[in-house]
């Protein structure tokens, strides 16, 4: 079965990112294809590469990066929602002349068409709300 997932809440502000990560790991373990994780609204903040997680708490950003590295799952952050929240990849850094990218390279910034595509392409679409 092909599953896509939306994440609406930021780490620390909501459990959405961690709940979605656990769900995605488990869906993969059960043999499903996780087509795309779409980070939307505050959810895009999980893509940030500058955070320093407290030592006594789970690092959800690192969990996403690790999931991508081991399973090739697409981590797609809404580009419009990312830009206004300071989440920039190298291309947007150049376009807006900011000093650095802030998004981890395992995440990609995409348009809302990729949200619609994820829904159209998948058998199931599961939202983790803020």
């Amino acid at each position: 079965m092909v599953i896509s997932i939306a994440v609406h809440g930021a780490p620390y502000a909501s459990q959405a990112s961690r709940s979605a990560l656990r769900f995605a790991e488990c869906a993969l373990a059960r043999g499903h294809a996780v087509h795309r994780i779409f980070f939307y609204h505050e959810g895009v903040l999980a893509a940030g590469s500058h955070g320093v997680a407290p030592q006594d708490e789970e690092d959800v950003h690192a969990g996403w990066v690790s999931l991508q590295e081991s399973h090739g799952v697409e981590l797609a952050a809404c580009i419009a929602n990312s830009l206004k929240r300071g989440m920039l990849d190298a291309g947007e850094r150049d376009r807006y002349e900011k000093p650095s990218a802030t998004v981890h390279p395992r995440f990609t910034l995409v348009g809302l068409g990729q949200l619609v595509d994820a829904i159209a392409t998948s058998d199931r679409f599961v939202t983790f709300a803020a």
Partner: protein
Amino acid sequence: MRRKRILFLLTRAPYASARAVETLESVQVAGVFEQEVSVLFKGAGVYQLLEGQEGSAVGQRTVGKILSALPEYDVERIFVCGPSMQRFGIEEADLCVAAQRLDQAEQRDLLAGQDAVVTG
């Protein structure tokens, strides 16, 4: 792209956050991509439909204006939860766009036919 039945379930009031505006942007895109889009305003989401909004008073876009433009994106199936309107004392004359009022049974039927639901 395959054509799916997608319901956008809008349950939050506008302006306290950008959520309403950001969700309506995906409603527009789903319309452009020729999905079978429905929109249901429910709970505090019905406040998005109130006429006379002026987002500039809080430095934001006006949600009511974005809603009025949805038909340009081929989004025509706009529904509102009747019990929620009653709870908040909102009449049909108070709405800035034409939305079909659904009771609980009609909302159940609407949900049952969907391939996916996007929560706003």
